[in-house]
């Protein structure tokens, strides 16, 4: 406890550096050697670089300084009182059967065992256990999908992370159910939480994954998650990220994906609430015929801030990518979108689309959208577009002329705007639940207590229609 108090007196970077130096044995206690080696390398890099700050071009519009200059508690030892997650999070799943794994304050919660093999053959479990059980997979992929020169958040994660989720889908294996990773923060102290995920899809495999970041209280925190995903030939990944943290919290979320030939991914990042959020999504198309759909929806208000940094590398020929991010910003919310498409010299026949559409509901909401295409091949089709607008006044009048109030007309239009992204969710039951969350959010009724999308039993109401505003 004394140590904790001390920790919380220093700015985050200084605290982490001291913590690493003083507790190296503890930090590496559970490691295989390869992982320890990467820690040391990353720690040195972090010492030089520190955290990114608003003086850096890529962080210019996102003030992470306010977060990193604060003091936090960073747990490097498994707390002995891992509360039963069931207590916190009773999932009464309606109509949607998932395979669930949970993390509490960054620690994997094992109900039965820290590492399990699902009936269809998928291996899922705690990152710290998995490295010992599958060292060859770690040596092959861990730390290799995230670039070596990644930013300070990634470096410090590599240096000091303690746990996370490991998923391995062997060749030819297809997930029978959506795998849901529920991450909950619930602590009295202001926590710094690092988690590290490694997800490996073998050849011809399939995985549907949902990743929920939630707070259960109003305590502030900073979460720094790094996820590396390898998608082998002809494999298929659907990744849904749901972000619903409190207004006091910061989330830095870095996802790195490497795709091999004829593989397909679809990521959908749905941000409902968070004080400050930065999503770095970096997809490398390294095998011909691969395709990536990178989608996102953000609904921000108050003084919330979201920064989506998307980078797609078309490294080889005949790949396609499609980026679509849509956002609704209310009150004094601010957003940044940076879509960077890089087409390498030999990546002929590339098709890359990028779009970012925003609705600003107030004059005080802001968006900074920057498409960026860097193309070195000559036979490519690339397009980008960004729109910033208000609600369509013609449509407002049309709707109101049918008797629908201004408030509900607004809601209908906002919902319709978001529908493009929601409709891309291919699992019907999940689509309905997210739909429900979006409606609640747009009506200002979604709280962090709604936790994850699957929480709280039956949906709000019966679904006969897409949306029913009549009861508002």
């Amino acid at each position, binding site marked *: 406890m004394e140590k904790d108090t001390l920790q919380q007196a220093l700015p985050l970077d200084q605290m982490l550096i001291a913590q690493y130096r003083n507790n190296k044995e503890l930090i590496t206690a559970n490691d295989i050697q390869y992982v320890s080696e990467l820690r040391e390398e990353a720690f040195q890099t972090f010492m030089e670089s520190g955290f990114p700050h608003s003086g850096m071009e890529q962080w210019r519009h996102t003030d992470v300084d306010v977060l990193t200059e604060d003091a936090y508690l960073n747990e490097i030892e498994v707390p002995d009182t891992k509360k039963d997650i069931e207590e916190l999070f009773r999932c009464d799943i309606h109509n949607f059967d998932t395979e669930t794994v949970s993390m509490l304050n960054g620690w994997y919660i094992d109900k039965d065992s820290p590492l399990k093999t699902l009936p269809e053959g998928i291996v899922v479990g705690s990152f710290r256990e998995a490295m010992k059980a599958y060292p060859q997979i770690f040596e092959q992929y861990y730390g290799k999908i995230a670039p070596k020169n990644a930013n300070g958040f990634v470096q410090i994660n590599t240096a000091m992370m303690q746990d996370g989720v490991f998923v391995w889908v062997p060749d030819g294996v297809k997930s029978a159910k959506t795998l849901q990773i529920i991450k909950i923060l619930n602590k009295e102290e202001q926590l710094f939480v690092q988690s590290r995920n490694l997800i490996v899809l073998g050849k011809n495999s399939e995985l549907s994954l949902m990743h929920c970041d939630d707070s259960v209280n109003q305590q502030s925190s900073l979460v720094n998650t790094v996820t590396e995903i390898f998608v082998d030939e002809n494999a298929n990944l659907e990744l849904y990220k749901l972000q619903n943290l409190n207004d006091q919290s910061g989330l830095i979320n870095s996802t790195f994906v490497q795709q091999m030939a004829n593989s397909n991914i679809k990521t959908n990042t749905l941000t409902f609430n968070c004080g400050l959020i930065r999503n770095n999504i970096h997809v490398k198309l390294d095998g011909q015929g691969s395709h990536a759909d990178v989608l996102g929806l953000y609904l921000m208000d108050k003084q919330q801030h979201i920064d989506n940094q998307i980078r797609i590398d078309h490294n080889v020929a005949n790949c396609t990518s499609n980026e679509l991010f849509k956002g609704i910003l209310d009150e004094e919310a601010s957003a940044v979108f940076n879509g960077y498409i890089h087409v390498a010299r030999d990546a002929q026949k590339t098709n890359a689309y990028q779009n970012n559409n925003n609705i600003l509901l107030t004059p005080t909401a802001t968006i900074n959208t920057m498409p960026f295409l860097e193309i070195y091949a000559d036979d490519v089709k690339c397009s980008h577009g960004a729109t910033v607008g208000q609600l369509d006044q013609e449509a407002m*009048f049309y709707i109101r*002329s049918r008797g629908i109030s201004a408030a509900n007309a607004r809601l209908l239009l906002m919902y319709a705007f978001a*529908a493009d992204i929601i409709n891309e969710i291919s699992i019907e039951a999940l689509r309905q639940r997210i739909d429900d969350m979006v409606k609640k959010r747009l009506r200002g009724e979604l709280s962090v207590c709604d936790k994850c999308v699957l929480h709280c039993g039956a949906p709000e109401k019966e679904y006969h229609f897409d949306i029913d505003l009549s*009861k508002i």
Partner: protein
Amino acid sequence: MLLNIKNLTVAIEGKEIIKGLNLQVNKGEVHAIMGPNGTGKSTLAAAITGREGYEVTEGEIWYKDQNIIEMDADERANLGIFLSFQYPVEIPGVSMTNFMRTAINAQREYRGLPPMPAGEFLKLMEEKKKLVDIHSKLTNRSVNEGFSGGEKKKNEIFQMALLEPTLAILDETDSGLDIDALRTVAKGVNELRSEENAFVVITHYQRLLEYIVPDFVHVMYDGKIVKSGSKNLALELEDKGYEWLKEQSLV
């Protein structure tokens, strides 16, 4: 009297478009408004239905014994005023079913009625779809999205049939319709006609008025009604055009 417009002046962005217009409509009547392009017919419709930005600078619009000029568009709709748009708006992402159910329930709520049960609503949809001969493949789509010009107009009448307004203003609902669709639309209107409601039909063509027979025909020119008469006036206009009226009104 259902609608009584007295000396109405309407300006858009400071520019006067309607310039002292009078119109009285009783329950059970059909009024046709004709007139050259750009004379303010749609502006009049927008002013009656409460479109923002259409500023009533003078005069009054009385509907069911209240002056409605300060009322919001949705409240006017809830009082039974309906506009079939000259240019219906596409609303991607909002399904027709959903839109109409929301509208019906909003209007019911205004009248102190509970929401319509889903089953009842679906039955009503089916019934009205038949009335205007509109295909399910349209009503399952987003509002007007990708509809052809004619389909959009039919869809307006479909909405009217569902909402059963007391005062319906049809702004060039006939333009863009093929002959069969024109008949269907007219049939829809005629079936809804009763002693309790009224229609204001804005059109350029006498043909619609063969199917929806008006009690009165008005000619609008330069923001005013310059001539009113019986249905025969429409025939006269078809024959002679507007030139003679323009000359008359300039005098």
